[in-house]
């Protein structure tokens, strides 16, 4: 695998004289309480076929009735992706036979999807790239097949869960871009709180269309669809493998077959699903059981006003208004919960930079080690803000604060009570510090002589001695000042 890459004139990497063209369909499972067209629940942990009703298993005469939350989530996502929202969009039936599809057709959107023509910006290190969103449409999920060799068993719990399929333009040119795009989509839908973004449970699924062509070639190569990529790492790995495989095929004089391939993470390779003998003819037609979705401008406006601040905007605000570095701003906005946590600490403490430091270093280290979500952090934003305030007021030193933080994490007690209990208050009383300094100077006459002879480096020795003697509680600024005065007098 070639990793050290050349790039062409628009910054796309070149692989052995080829460039890759990648488009992604992200299936976002909308986190509604009930299914898109029926009232069964959507919880992931339900027993076999527990979340089924006559409607979701397609019993005779049953009819779909649209869940209004699903439309709200679709429109909000569309708006966040800069899409145009159709005032009138249509559900169509996609007809095909498969046991996990209860009605023999999937209710989806075909020529009149709810969202169209948007874009997202992805960040790759220093570089930014705009990826266009062709469309985003609502559809129902299928059930789940459990393959047992001699037969297959079907669970329809998932049948009818609302999906928003977000289709990108074929505009990504490397596995890294593809993974970054998918991450960005996940970040946005989680900000909007319309999807929990859990790839392992399938609440976010990526299908990647990959093709390669010789550098300079106009025509697109034959595309291969990669399915079942349930982590961003697999998206990257599978595409990486696929680019290499396709170039190998072409260079060996073989044609690329238009097909669907699955990724095997254990072997790190893709393999062909059984190729369909005939091209599918889905016989799409408007579903007569559902009227077109109708939304007027005022309703769309209302949804727009309800949108939260999106990550791309927040990054900029954190830099401009709060003075964070781009690096810190990116880290703090990656997840909405982290950004919300940071803002709360920053607001309550009035110290955005200090808050950012504490969160990106100490707090994240502990959260990662304990595998705890920031929303369940034992140290609340209020508690962390108090700790920062105590440092700022000089009640404790930065060093002591680390000890207090560790104690807060363990006990969930407030910084104040930990400081009181353990007598960790910083000593700023000049008479106390003076007394300590006098003792130290008296005990170390030779070092005092050295300093006074011009060897100012020994100053550090005195500082260390003061801190040691005060068990770290002496206010360092005060100690420095008094030391200087005493030594230079």
């Amino acid at each position, binding site marked *: 695998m070639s990793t050290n890459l050349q790039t062409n004139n628009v910054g796309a990497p070149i692989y052995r004289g080829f460039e890759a063209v990648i488009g992604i369909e992200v299936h976002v499972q909308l986190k509604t309480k009930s299914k898109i067209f029926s009232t069964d629940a959507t919880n992931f942990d339900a027993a076999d076929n527990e979340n089924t009703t006559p409607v979701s298993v397609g*019993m005779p*005469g049953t*009819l779909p009735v649209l869940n209004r939350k699903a439309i709200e989530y679709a429109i909000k996502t569309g708006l966040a992706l800069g899409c145009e929202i159709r005032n009138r969009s249509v559900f169509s039936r996609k007809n095909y036979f498969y046991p996990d599809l209860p*009605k*023999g057709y999937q209710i989806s959107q075909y020529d009149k999807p709810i969202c169209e023509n948007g874009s997202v910006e992805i960040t790759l290190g220093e570089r930014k790239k705009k990826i266009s969103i062709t469309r985003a449409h609502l559809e129902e999920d299928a059930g789940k097949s459990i393959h047992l060799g001699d037969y297959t068993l079907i669970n329809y719990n998932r049948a009818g869960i609302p999906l928003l399929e977000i289709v990108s333009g074929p505009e990504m040119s490397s596995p890294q871009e593809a993974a970054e795009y998918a991450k960005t989509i996940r970040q946005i839908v989680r900000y909007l709180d319309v999807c929990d973004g859990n790839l392992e449970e399938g609440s976010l699924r990526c299908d990647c269309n990959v093709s390669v062509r010789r550098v300079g070639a106009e025509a697109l190569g034959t595309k291969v669809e990669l399915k079942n990529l349930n982590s961003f790492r697999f998206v990257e790995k599978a595409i990486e493998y696929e680019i290499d495989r396709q170039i190998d095929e072409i260079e060996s004089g073989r044609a690329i077959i238009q097909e669907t391939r699955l990724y095997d993470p254990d072997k790190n390779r893709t393999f062909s699903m059984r190729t369909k003998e005939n091209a599918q003819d889905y*016989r799409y037609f408007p579903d007569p*059981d559902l009227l077109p979705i109708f939304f007027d401008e005022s309703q769309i406006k209302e949804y727009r006003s309800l949108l939260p601040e999106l990550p791309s905007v927040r990054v900029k605000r954190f830099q401009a208004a709060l003075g964070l570095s781009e690096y810190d701003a990116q880290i703090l906005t990656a997840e909405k919960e982290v950004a919300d946590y940071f803002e709360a600490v920053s607001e309550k403490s009035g110290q955005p930079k200090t808050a950012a430091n504490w969160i990106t270093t100490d707090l994240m280290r502990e959260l990662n080690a304990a595998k705890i979500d920031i929303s369940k952090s034992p140290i609340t934003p209020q508690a962390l803000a108090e700790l920062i305030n105590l440092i700022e007021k000089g009640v404790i030193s930065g060093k002591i604060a680390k000890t207090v933080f560790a104690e807060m994490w363990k006990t969930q007690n407030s910084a104040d009570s930990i400081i009181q209990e353990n007598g960790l208050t910083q000593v700023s009383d000049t008479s106390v510090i003076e007394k300590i300094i006098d003792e130290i100077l008296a005990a170390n006459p030779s070092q005092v002589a050295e300093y006074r002879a011009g060897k100012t480096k020994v100053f550090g020795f005195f500082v260390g001695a003061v801190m040691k003697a005060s068990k770290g509680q002496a206010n360092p600024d005060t100690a420095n000042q008094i030391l200087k005065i005493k030594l230079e007098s």
Partner: protein
Amino acid sequence: MQLTEASFKEVRDAVLKKEISAVEITKHFLTRSEKLNPQLNAYITMNTEALAEAQKIDQRIAQGEAVGPLAGISFGIKDLLCTRGLKTTAGSKILGNFIPPYDSTVVRRLKNAGAIVLGKMNLDEFAMGSSNETSFFGKCHNPWNTNHVPGGSSGGSAAAQASRLVMGTIGTDTGGSIRQPASFCGVVGVKPTYGRISRYGIVAYASSLDQAGPIVSSIEDAALTLEVISGHDENDSTTSQKTVPAFSKNLSRNMKGMKIGLLKEYKTGELHFDITKTFERAIEELKKAGAEIVEVSVPLTEFAVPMYYLIAASEASSNLARYDGVKFGYRADFKDLSSLSLDDFYSQTRGEGFGKEVKRRIMLGTYCLSSGYYDAYYNKACQVRRLLREQYLEVFKTCDAILSPVTTSPAFKIGERSSDALKMYLNDIFTTATNLAGLPGLSVPFGFSEQGLPIGIQLTGAHFEEQKILNVAYALEECAQLTNANGQKRIPDVY
């Protein structure tokens, strides 16, 4: 009380006054059904719980509870409407053993109104037919002459109603399936506006055309039944949220100021002499009653049959995809699943489970939706459909109701028209346009042929104007010629 002659209101009032019990009524009609059904084959399934349900109604009345406007009324339900715990077959082998765990909204509303379901009535398989000859459970016979068809697809409902095996029935109408059998059997059949009545739980044939409605003995009974079963349903988003008028209370025979439209296109059809005669008499009677007769034109009705079959078959091909032997219904007898391909599993199950006519329509619909043909057939038909609707909307600016024959001839003989698909499809010339435009329509008995077969008159109204056509039919009902030479009311052979 002469139960076979009494109106719903008379019987219901008697039940509420405890002059007669729901159990007595149910027993009466169960006995008639058991005695007469063998000559008709109108039932597919009888409800063994009917008496127990009637008992409950009586108990509730005894305890002073409010019971609905159809308290104790015996109903036969077309076997296309799902009934909780009671087999629902759609007249097909593929649903031959299906027991729904839910009620269709229409049935639920009837039950809530106090009606008792006596059983499930015969029909053309999946409502595809106009003679009841395509039922997997055997042909149904016309009570007026058992060598003739009762019409279809709601043939069992219309035949049972004519013979009074029950007090009222429910049918469904996709291209005439309530109005045509009602006409053939001499009973009243109403197909309401598309969206007036919930389709939830009604086995779908063609979703944009299907509508349920009453097949009963009088306009008054039809109006009362409509009141009960109409209205918005949260399980069907294609139901209208409009308020349902008090149809039965608003009934009026006053034809003064009513404008009745006659379609000039209908004159071109090859009408049976008795049909023409009956139709012309209806015009005369309405004139006498003070209505104004105006000539109107809906040129595209000429294309109604092609439009209807292209759209209905396309929708059906998709609606019937769920019958695949996986979740319910028939599955071909496979010895061993492990060596079976999925395609063979489906094709054999569906090939064995569906009858000939159903397969023909699935094939037609699949073809019309397939790539390369969609635009020329399905989409073209939908475009013409819009134009047809617009022509009707224009017409209803100048008249209140359109009067027309229901069929070109009275009930035909069993086997007479089933061999040639196209010829059979062309029978639906007078009824399909109503469904395509989503309009309400009805058939009211108005006379008899020389051979003694009933002939109905059709009325078509503007969207959600059921009241107007009910009123015109109410007026026609009073001057219908339903007696024999001796002035006695004619009764069917099977009665």
